[in-house]
């Protein structure tokens, strides 16, 4: 019964978190100067055609109506909530009117997921493996060298590294493309090659920086765990060295890393804002960027809501599977 109660409470918290998050991103953009109607009007008027002020006014009214922005904030909020809960529909994008937000997101999400999940899993696996070895054999010179390298790379903001990569490998030595452009029919071999080729630099820029962090944190944890009584005692019990490293040290040191990994998987759904913009990568990050520039309330809500739900879900899943990873933890 404890499990049922735990689940019920946990689910309530989940719903609460998502609701609060969505509410915040509903209101914040509306308190920021600039609104989508003016942005759209500006676009139309800047094309040089002179317009009758009466016509302009009626156009503004029509746009406001179309975008669902008439009425008080509370009226907008309640109609938004009921629409999202009932139909999961975030409405049309305002800057790409009338393309629905869901369609834009559905188009961008696979790109972000593909890039970021690959980057995350690669750096997690590689970083923990290197961190484990470097921590376990921390008296070796190579281990110190690796740590110094990781220390140098990891404080570099990922966008600085990305910029550096673009300048070096797309501009000075044009080995990789400057603009993200995929060719071939989706799913075909040439298309996969083209995606890999185009995604290489963004991938490296993310992996390199996060790798440093995984190495440093895993190494620190391994060094701590190595000194724990149960590891020392295992050694004096004649437990084999590789068993101590994997079954005793890595088995416990990896637990916090799993937590961070699960939370990071949630974060993947938000895209990598600056990397995507820098490389012109068609992911969720670019979408959020465009939404903010164009005061596109609906698109902002759509993209960021997915992020919120993803992070909240990742945390929930983590809580549910943790007792299987760490036997000391039980549902309460």
């Amino acid at each position, binding site marked *: 019964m404890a499990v049922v109660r735990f689940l019920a409470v946990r689910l309530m918290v989940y719903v609460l978190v998502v609701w609060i998050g969505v509410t915040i991103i509903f209101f914040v953009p509306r308190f920021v100067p600039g609104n989508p109607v003016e942005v759209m009007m500006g676009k139309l008027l800047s094309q040089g055609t002179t317009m009758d002020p009466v016509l302009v006014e009626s156009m503004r009214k029509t746009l406001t109506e179309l975008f669902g922005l008439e009425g008080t904030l509370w009226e907008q909020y309640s109609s938004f909530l009921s629409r999202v809960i009932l139909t999961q529909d975030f409405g049309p994008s305002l800057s790409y009117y009338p393309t629905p937000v869901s369609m834009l997101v559905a188009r961008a999400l696979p790109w972000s997921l593909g890039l970021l999940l690959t980057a995350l899993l690669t750096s997690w696996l590689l970083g923990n493996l290197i961190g484990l070895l470097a921590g376990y054999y921390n008296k070796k010179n190579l281990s110190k060298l690796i740590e110094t390298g990781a220390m140098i790379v990891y404080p570099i903001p990922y966008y600085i590294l990305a910029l550096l990569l673009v300048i070096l490998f797309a501009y000075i030595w044009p080995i990789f493309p400057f603009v993200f452009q995929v060719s071939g029919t989706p799913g075909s071999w040439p298309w996969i090659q083209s995606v890999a080729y185009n995604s290489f630099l963004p991938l490296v820029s993310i992996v390199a920086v996060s790798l440093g962090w995984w190495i440093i944190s895993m190494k620190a944890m391994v060094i701590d765990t190595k000194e724990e009584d*149960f590891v020392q005692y295992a050694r004096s019990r*004649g437990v084999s060295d590789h068993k101590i490293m994997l079954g005793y040290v890595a088995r416990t040191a990896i637990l916090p890393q799993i937590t961070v990994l699960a939370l990071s998987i949630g974060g993947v759904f938000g895209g990598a804002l600056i990397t995507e913009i820098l490389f012109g990568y068609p992911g969720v990050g670019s979408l959020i960027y465009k939404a903010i520039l164009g005061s596109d309330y609906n698109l902002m809500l759509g993209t960021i809501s997915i992020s919120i739900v993803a992070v909240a879900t990742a945390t929930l899943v983590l809580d549910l599977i943790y007792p299987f990873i760490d*036997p000391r933890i039980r549902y309460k």
Partner: protein
Amino acid sequence: MIRVRNVCLHYQTVQGTVKAVENVSFDIFDGEILGIAGESGCGKSTLMKGIYGNVEAPLALTQGSIEMEIEQAGERQVIPSTQFHRYWWEHISYIPQASMSVLNPVVRIQDQFFDSYLRADVRALGKQQLQGRIAEYLRELELPVEVLHSYPHQLSGGMRQRVIVALATFVHPRFVLADEPTTALDVVVQRGILTMLVNLQRQLQNTFILVSHDMGVHYQITDRMVIMYAGQVVEIAPTAILFERPRHPYTQLLINSLPRLGDDTQRFGIGGRPPSLLAPPAGCRFAARCHLADDQCRQVQPPLVEVEPGHFAACLKHEWVTEIPLVGGGESA
């Protein structure tokens, strides 16, 4: 047997060299329960590390030797302590202080048995049969077999310590070192563990080395005792003789601090503190706290002499020790 000869074990620290064990010599005979006693910081545990051959920086064996003599394949072999790690668990095993943290928290007890050293022929039995063997052994030790499927945190302190004892004796090593095996436990559980240790020793006919600061524990189970003070051995004697006629004032004070049934006079501690092991005093290290000490004691280091067959004491005044009655035994603590 294990021979400890002129052993010095030093810790290299930032403040200087801590001479944790100085010039210690004694023998550990086959089939005995040897007790090592002394207050905290007297070098008991450091000496145990040395005897186990687990000497790692900052600790170093700066002088002397520790050797283990075992019979293997019909011939006697002498093994230096630097090679002990090859015989860990097979010939010499270790029971640490009862604590939460010596067992792997995320692995079931049974797997911790599997992970430990096992003779090749035992390992060859395969998982099923080995599991049966372990269960059988636990039953012999009157432990519930269910503990095999538990994680350490699901067991009580006493149960955990019994499991550790079982783990350390499962492969029947010749020498078992126990460092304060009952210190963290309440007296009822303590008694159970001590009984278990004594029964095991009788059954396996091997050698137990028991470190404890608790003279009561030593009196109950050890055959012979080594008393340590400030890194040195001050007295060695069979336990019964040691308790009957101690020949070192420190031993006498330790024994005197034990409560006795029917005696309701106040107990006294030993006044003062042991000297710093960074810069120990020139003469007898106990002189500053000793009621018998004179100027000679403060200048000359007393050698360990045989005061009667099998009874050694390092005290210039050893003849006086039992004759001068203890009044209070120094300041009350």
